């Protein structure tokens, strides 16, 4: 394949990935990796390197839009980043020692899990019962604006949430993804942070976590500029347009269609990985 053709195909694919990723909240990596590995026969190491760049691009791009609302809890983000950055590097180290086919299988399983999480009805568990000693000590409790008034919320199960972030960070480093689905479990279900705060805070953390593993991947030679170029341009353009459409569109049906596509891709990846292992 010539450089020009390769660039055009990846550019279009990355655009769609960025668009759907921001519309469904699943992020770009979910499509970038299957597109490169299944569609274009790119080695998974390069696909992961390209995907981690797309994670940073979507995180920074959408965060710029989020911060206007002023609901990111920077303390929660910074506190949990201790877990996600250390574990992201652990993830990259693990990736160095296990066979690429296993990484592909794990990626497929995480895809299945993400599709399930995307369709699940979200329940807001947040309340203002400030019972956690650690949450008080680390000043994690906060407030966010609802109809012009400040609504207080309390953070729970700090240790459990921190542990979940360790898992999320490891998978983020291992697979080059944002691990959004796992972060949601940690923040919404375990720590009981309100949606509005958890979505933006998790997005804030994603970029920082991905930056830590991206630097290691760069040194390992997994970030190839020929792939990174169309991926970066495509994902950023797609995600920006997606964020604008998102404000005035209902995405329930799209999420259902996208979940089917993701499940299909997940099974393909698992099959590819397993046939490689065998």
């Amino acid at each position, binding site marked *: *394949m*010539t450089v020009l053709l390769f660039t055009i195909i990846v550019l279009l694919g990355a655009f769609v990935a960025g668009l759907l990723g921001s519309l469904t909240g699943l992020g770009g990596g979910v499509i970038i990796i299957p597109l490169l590995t299944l569609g274009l026969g790119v080695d998974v190491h390069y696909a992961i390197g390209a995907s981690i760049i797309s994670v940073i691009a979507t995180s920074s791009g959408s965060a710029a839009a989020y911060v206007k609302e002023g609901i990111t809890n*920077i303390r929660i983000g910074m506190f949990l980043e201790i877990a996600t950055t250390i574990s992201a590097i652990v993830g990259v180290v693990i990736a*160095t020692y296990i066979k690429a086919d296993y990484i592909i299988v794990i990626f497929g399983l995480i895809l299945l899990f993400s599709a399930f999480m995307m369709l699940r009805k979200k329940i807001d568990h947040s309340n203002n019962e400030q019972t956690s000693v650690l949450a008080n000590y680390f000043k994690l409790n906060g407030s966010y604006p609802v109809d012009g008034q400040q609504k207080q919320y309390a953070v729970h199960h700090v240790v459990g949430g921190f542990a979940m972030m360790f898992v999320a960070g490891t998978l983020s480093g291992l697979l080059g993804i944002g691990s959004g689905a796992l972060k949601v479990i940690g923040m919404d279900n375990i720590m009981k942070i309100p949606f509005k705060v958890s979505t933006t805070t998790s997005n804030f953390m994603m970029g920082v976590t*991905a930056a*830590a593993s991206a630097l290691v991947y760069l040194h*390992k030679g*997994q970030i190839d500029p020929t792939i990174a170029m169309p991926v970066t341009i495509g994902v*950023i353009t797609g995600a920006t347009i997606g964020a604008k459409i998102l404000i005035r569109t209902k995405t329930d049906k799209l999420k259902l269609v996208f979940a089917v596509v993701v499940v299909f891709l997940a099974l393909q990846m698992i099959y590819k990985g397993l046939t490689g292992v065998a």
Partner: protein
Amino acid sequence: MSKQIKHYLGDRDVQLILGTLLRVGVLVSTAIVIIGGVVFLSTQTNQIVSFESFKPEQAKFSSVAEIFNGLKSVDGLAIIQFGVLLLIFTPIARVVFSIFSFLMEKDYMYVLIGIIVLCVIITSLYLDIAH
């Protein structure tokens, strides 16, 4: 109550600056990647590419020093990689900025937490894992 409101306004200013920082970071790095892409494609259009197997020994511009060296000779791929590097540094700049804002709030516990996170990232910059 008044303390909380003041706290919130301070955070809001910080977040507005953060938002601008992120937007500028993304815009500038994308622009550089596009420029690098144009330079690269204008010279290499018909070259055949294959990424079917991972060859780390052939990796071009896989360190900050190599990228800066490549920039001197106006290499398209080096320009792309420089844009990518800027993109990676955008969230890191966000951490640095947060540390300063915690310092201004005299919240030394979070200054320390921010520095820990920054140290982990800096470690990753020097971490060289043999493949």
